[in-house]
């Protein structure tokens, strides 16, 4: 196969700091090429050079054998290169259909016609999204589907998927991989970035691994296995440490006092008569497919959203009924929710690490001084960046400049400064590299060991199995099954989640 794209000794520097150093990369026509590496390895930078978001500082970029330099993504798109961004680039105030057709509008547009066409197009991709809904009303997974649909709709010759499956359910992933195969058969080249190594191994023709902005290896996918990829990514084997056989020797933490009891919670058709209990000194894992109501239940508990006005059920925290209208009151009582969508709800991207962590303290009214204290803010930031091993130049670095794993650590630090009694992690390792996953898992385990009640909501079964002391399975808006650590298997959990 001929090389469609070729990068030769490409270097990209931000403020003099190299994000990529002399990287070589080539993409053949009609292949699926996975780009793997830890967060901060340079995958996103490389793909953004391909898609015209960034320009290379040094080196050559060849497209169909000719030098090219796209000045913006629109130009790249005109040349048939589309990118599905990790952070969605949809317009929230437009509908799904309008977003799909954005940039392809005719002079006169009939909205109904767009909706019908979008409906048919989404159905052909097996994406269950209502084209008339506003994007702001969609969940993270559905936004990702629209993003993918938009890229496919542009008839691109190269599609770059940056973590496309992170928010998808197993069934949706299945549809997505079928779509990738269809695109490949029609001659589209695909660059696939994912932290789910099994996915990369199963759908890729070739795999390239980057580490610290440098090219490590490119080879056929058949030449790799999970351990080989991980050792190439991080320079050591983390497989067992993360999701390996540690669970065989792990012992479930005993039940502590019941901290929270949610009884017959209801919120529209999403949460339906849901009841569960959370105990201190334990990690309660909640597994469920997207739309099973697990995130919404957590948000009701923590005051992010409100339950039904009439007969919405009851939440008892430390044996007292509570009803939070805003998260602030929940935070003051000791309930903290760490969001699944950190970019939208987790931090202020234009603020520094220190400012973000300090806002957590302000939100809980735990600041020592009456006014904002710079010294208190910096002391706090230093303490927590050290505790959670946040890798940044200093605490004044902007959060948006950090890798996904470090951003997540900042979000967790922001939550932990609020001194929670119950902390709910929603997809804590989504979009986080394997090295940082191990660190985050350690943090979560330490919190439970210290006696805190910890809830982990995750769509990734190995993570739930590795972390949780008890596993609740959510389906159709309610908890339908509970497994002890010893009883739980991937098959049993998935069966309960689906049937």
């Amino acid at each position: 196969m001929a090389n469609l794209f070729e990068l030769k000794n490409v270097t990209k520097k931000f403020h003099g700091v190299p994000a990529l150093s002399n990287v070589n990369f080539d993409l053949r026509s009609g292949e699926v090429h996975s780009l793997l590496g830890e967060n901060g390895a340079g995958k996103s930078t490389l793909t953004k050079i391909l898609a015209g978001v960034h320009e290379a500082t040094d080196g050559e970029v060849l497209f169909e054998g000719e030098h090219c330099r796209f000045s913006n993504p629109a130009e790249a798109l005109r040349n048939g290169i589309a990118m599905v961004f990790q952070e969605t680039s949809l317009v929230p105030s437009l509908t799904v259909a309008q977003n799909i057709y954005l940039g392809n509008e005719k002079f006169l547009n009939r909205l109904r016609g767009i909706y019908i066409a979008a409906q048919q197009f989404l159905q052909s991709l097996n994406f269950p999204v209502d084209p008339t809904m506003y994007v702001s009303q969609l969940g993270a997974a559905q936004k990702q589907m629209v993003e993918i649909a938009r890229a496919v709709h542009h008839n691109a010759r190269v599609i770059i998927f940056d973590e496309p499956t992170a928010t998808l359910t197993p069934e949706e992933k299945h549809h997505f991989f079928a779509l990738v195969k269809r695109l490949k058969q029609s001659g589209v080249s695909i660059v696939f970035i994912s932290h789910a190594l099994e996915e990369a191994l199963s759908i890729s023709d070739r795999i390239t691994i980057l580490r610290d902005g440098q090219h490590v290896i490119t080879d056929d996918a058949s030449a790799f296995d999970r351990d080989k990829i991980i050792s190439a990514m991080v320079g050591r084997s983390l497989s067992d440490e993360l999701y390996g056989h540690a669970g065989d020797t792990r012992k479930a933490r005993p039940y502590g006092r019941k901290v929270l009891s949610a009884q017959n919670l209801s919120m529209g058709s999403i949460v339906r008569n849901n009841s569960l209990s959370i105990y201190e000194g334990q990690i309660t894992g909640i597994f469920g497919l997207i739309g099973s109501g697990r995130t919404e239940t957590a948000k009701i508990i923590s005051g992010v959203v409100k339950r039904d006005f009439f007969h919405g059920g009851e939440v008892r925290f430390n044996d007292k009924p509570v009803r939070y209208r805003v998260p602030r009151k929940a935070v003051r009582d000791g309930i903290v929710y760490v969001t699944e969508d950190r970019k939208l709800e987790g931090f202020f991207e234009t603020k520094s690490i220190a400012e973000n962590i300090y806002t957590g303290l302000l939100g809980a009214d735990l600041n020592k001084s009456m006014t904002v204290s710079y010294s208190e803010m910096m002391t706090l930031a230093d303490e927590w960046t050290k505790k959670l091993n946040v890798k940044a130049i200093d605490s004044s670095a902007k959060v948006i400049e950090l890798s996904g794993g470090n951003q997540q650590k900042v979000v967790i630090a922001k939550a932990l400064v609020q001194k929670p009694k119950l902390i709910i992690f929603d997809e804590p390792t989504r979009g986080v590299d394997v090295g940082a996953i191990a660190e985050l898992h350690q943090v979560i385990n330490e919190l439970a060991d210290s006696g805190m009640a910890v809830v982990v909501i995750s769509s990734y079964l190995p993570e739930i199995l590795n972390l949780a002391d008890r596993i609740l399975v959510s389906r159709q808006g309610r908890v339908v099954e509970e497994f002890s650590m010893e009883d739980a298997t991937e098959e049993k959990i998935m069966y309960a989640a689906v049937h």
Partner: protein
Amino acid sequence: MIGSLKSRLDQFLGRGQAAVTVPSLDGALKPNNRLDEALAGIKGEAPDNLVLWNGQVLWSEGAQIFSGPEKTLFAQMQSDVTALAAIKDGNLVVALSEGGLQMLDGTGQQVKTLAGSEISCVTALEFIAPEKLVIAIGSTENSINEWARDLLEQRSSGQLLMLDLVSGQSNVIAQNLAYPSGLLQTPFGALIVSEAWTSRIVKIDIGSGEKTPVMEDLPAYPGRICRSKDAGYWICMFAPRSPLIEFVLREPVYRKEMMAEVDPEFWIAPALRSGYSFHEPMQGGALKQMGILKPWAPTRSYGLVIEVDERFVPVRSFHSRAGGKRHGITSALPQNDLLWVTSKGGQETFSINLGTDVIDGGNV
């Protein structure tokens, strides 16, 4: 005034007291079938209270007291026995349904009348000193057989009395209790009491009578309590709470009419046994299909014994679910590796081998 307005608003919105919610059976209370799986026990007519007396297990059944695996008759009383307590000198105190307390000797013969019919509806007895007996009186308004009426009338007329066996004098330790149905002295001297109608366990100071809740919002009505081997406690839950019953408990006019017009056994109220008549009130889902009642069906009766540690944190639990038979657990008693249990609803006294049960994450 504000409280009354809030109560009205809660009734309208289905919040607070009117939320009609029941905590879920999860965690250490995750349902299992351990009570039904235990080996066949000793059949009887409504076995009730167990007591360890001179190294052997005694239990009451109606007006009789039995002992041992051969079910040897130990004593025959004039009326139904409602509570038992063993004295260290080898005697036994027996509370009767028609009122009064009797003391029996080692042969089962009556040696003394400790109290007359002024003391009735005794649910539990506990010696806090060789001569000091604490008596839990479930209700001063209703008899012990009318416990469901007491719940539906929302009474809180229970009392704890301390009786001095030497002088015969009694004094009230605590009153206005919502059906105290279990009683035990902690190693620190305070009393642990099951307050059934408020679904909680409270610690009561003997001197001041001050109540401190130690377990609240239980998913069933707590009954008798006994010590476990590991410094904790076994708590018997004699009937389950259910959203339907919680709803009825918030509808005074309906309850009044129901109690006036319907036979007590068919009231929408918790029961020690259920599913024996098609006249019984039934919730959707409790329909038998192909002769089988689903274990998760809504039910008026249930079998549940919970082991809690010294901090009253549940450690493990034994269940007989909706489809099971061993409902209405009124008493439990550990002896060596066995836990003796009376299922008043299932009409059986049986034992569970604790030696083969491993406590691990609350699951057995």
